[in-house]
């Protein structure tokens, strides 16, 4: 999979530096975190992975692409991709700081005041402060404009009431960025504000949601009189929709090629299983394996194509195409995974009597086509904004 990225000598040196650092650091003190976390296993080794975040931050690997004046490295898009690839290839643990670095950080860089930047960015860059996202609500689903959680100004604070859902990492995060309705007289996307809310306070209750995998990566967050200072408003009051949509746009970015390395590892494991069980000799399963292999290449070429046009092409639209592409591919991979195990897929595996990797993949990938914008929402976006079809 390494083919395709055309690297300068300097970029190649950067790759080697990243590779060496990861090898060194994952071999020693942090050997136990290798391969932990990730879809279906977000509950693994959380304390150790928090420590790992600090290690990453201390060595300057967080905020690679951020401007130097804000503590970043001003690294090119290509180098960010390279780092993601090396990170995935090294089997480094799933990032707990993903939302901190990729969502709230960029939002603050774009919309935050100088004070907010000075206050919040360093903690993110050091890997010390973890953030989670408070957008979805039970009755709104994919329709973010249906947000009902209210934030009422009382003196120097906003007081929040309502419920968020699908908040991953809320149980371990320090702060939450919340989309709340500050103007009750406005409807839909008007009258919303983007607030930074500390989680460790009375008035906030966090309940894990048990998923179809049996594990809990998502939470419900209940606000009942929770407070945050007015200084923690990002953008203008009532301008939260614009800020939040900006955040969403940050979500899909350079991680794609790194993500594909994880996909390749999963596919290789499935192929190995198929050889072991003899499933690879089943024509239908073999055809699906080959299709998966080809599909992974097509995703890689699509990402490289997008990357090669970065800066000149339209932005955002590829995000939805890429999301549909990988989410469907991954979901199909989940079905393939359990199918190659044959009848053994009927029962949990091994002595621990826990679901097998293949069963977890089958179940967990069902979320891929739902979270981060459902397939249905993505198709709307592609049809209307990429193809320009009428509403």
């Amino acid at each position, binding site marked *: 999979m390494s083919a395709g990225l055309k690297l300068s000598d300097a970029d190649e040196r950067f790759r080697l530096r990243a590779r060496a650092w990861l090898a060194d650091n994952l071999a020693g003190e942090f050997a136990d975190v290798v391969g932990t976390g990730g879809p279906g296993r977000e509950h693994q080794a959380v304390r150790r992975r928090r420590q790992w975040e600090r290690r990453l931050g201390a060595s300057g690997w967080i905020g690679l692409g951020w401007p130097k004046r804000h503590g970043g490295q001003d690294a090119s898009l290509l180098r960010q991709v390279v780092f993601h690839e090396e990170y995935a290839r090294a089997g480094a643990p799933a990032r707990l700081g993903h939302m901190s670095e990729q969502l709230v950080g960029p939002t603050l860089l774009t919309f935050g005041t100088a004070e907010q930047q000075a206050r919040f960015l360093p903690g993110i860059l050091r890997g010390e402060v973890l953030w989670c996202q408070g957008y*979805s609500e*039970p*009755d*709104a*689903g*994919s*329709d973010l*404009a*249906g947000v009902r959680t209210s934030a009422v100004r009382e003196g120097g604070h906003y007081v929040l009431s309502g419920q968020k*859902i*699908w908040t991953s990492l809320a149980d371990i995060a320090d702060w939450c960025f919340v989309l709340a309705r500050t103007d009750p007289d406005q409807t839909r996307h008007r009258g919303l504000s983007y607030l930074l809310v500390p989680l460790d306070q009375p008035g906030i209750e966090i309940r894990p*949601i*048990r*998923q*179809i995998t*049996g594990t809990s990566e*998502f939470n419900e967050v209940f606000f009942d009189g929770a407070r945050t200072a007015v200084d923690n408003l990002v953008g203008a009051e009532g301008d939260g929709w614009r800020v939040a949509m900006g955040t969403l746009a940050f979500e899909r970015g350079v991680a794609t090629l790194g993500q594909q390395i994880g996909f390749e590892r999963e596919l290789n494991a499935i192929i190995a299983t198929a050889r072991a069980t003899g499933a690879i000799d*089943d*024509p*239908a*399963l073999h055809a699906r394996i080959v299709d998966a292999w080809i599909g992974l290449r097509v995703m890689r070429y699509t990402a490289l194509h997008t990357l090669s046009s970065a800066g000149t092409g339209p932005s955002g639209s590829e995000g939805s195409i890429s999301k549909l592409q990988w989410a469907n591919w991954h979901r199909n991979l989940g079905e393939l995974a*359990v*199918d190659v195990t*044959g*009848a053994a*897929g*009927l*029962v*949990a595996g091994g002595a621990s*009597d*826990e*679901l097998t990797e293949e*069963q977890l993949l*089958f*179940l967990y990938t*069902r*979320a891929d*086509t*739902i*979270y981060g914008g*459902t*397939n*249905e929402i993505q*198709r709307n976006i592609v049809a209307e904004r990429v193809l320009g079809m009428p509403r």
Partner: protein
Amino acid sequence: MRQYDRNEPPGLSEPTELSEPTEPSEPIERREMRRTVADFLDRHADIRTAMTNADGYDRELWRRGVDELGVSALLVPERCGGLGMSFADGAVLVAEFGRRLVPSPLLDTVVATAVLAACGTDEADWLLTEIATEGLSVAVAFAEPEAGWCADSLASRAASHSAGWTLRGAKEYVAHGATADLLLVPARTTEGELRLYVTRASDAGLRRTSRTALDHTRTLAEIEFTDAVAVRVDGSAGGADSVALLSGLMLTALAVESAAAARSCLSGIVTYLSVRQQFGRALGSFQALKHRCADLAVRVAGAEATAWYATESVGNGAQAATTPELAKVVCADALLRVAAESVQLHGGIGFTFDHDAHLFLKRGKANQLLFGSGQQLRTRVAEAAGLGT
């Protein structure tokens, strides 16, 4: 004549009322039975409690079913104190239990009693009498670690003794095998002949290990037989036929169950989409979702018809021998597809453990795998149809 019926113009009529899924073709008595079973389950079946208790099903519900519906006596001939009903009648129960994913040894018991009734031996009749009167549950212990569900490759051994038979071998993926009262077991005589045996689950010569199943609503067990005392139930005419009947009925029952579950899962989608509001209107009014539901409806209609046909043609020599295989493939595939769409169309809530969407998904995947994979069964169907390469 149907073709002379008047019809509303497409796209202009009011939506028709949603009614309970029924088999419009079935005799009135059977429809009555379906309603009785449905009422019974609506009142008494609690899937969540049943699937989480240690037994993996609700013993009280079983007992009640024995008393009120005669679930164990249904297919037992009247000569053995049973109700003497047909497999197609039993399929009504399988469908209604399946529609709600009720964890229960019902399916295996229905099939096992149908097979025992067909055996016609004194031993079988004697067991049937006990099943009917005592309300016993039966598990079908068919698959083996090496053979899977391929009857020709089964290797469990039955040895003849003065007192009867003893069994040796290992079986797996036995539904409710850890709790059933009796086990119906295909095994080979020392001459290599395939025969059907029944053992008591309490026999000291067998060990049952419950496995955590992907499908929470149907527990699976491994069973090791080490000289378990058994009764041979098939007649001298040929055990292979009995084993083929057992396999055919299990496949047909799984087809019936899958089709019924697919129908109720689809109904669940439609209900959710009709109620759930987003972007200021019911989700179900979005055309893209409607069209997907319509495609599912086509699939479910085909599955129901195939399950119906397989049930109707049970034991009818004129039918293709692999109708049960075909039916299981078509119906289990349909269920998995509907269930997958159910998770997707429910959005985040469909991904939670508390919502039932995943139970249908897991049942769908399990039913695809039980009694032979899609590819294995397709190969059998193709060969029987002369489509071999």
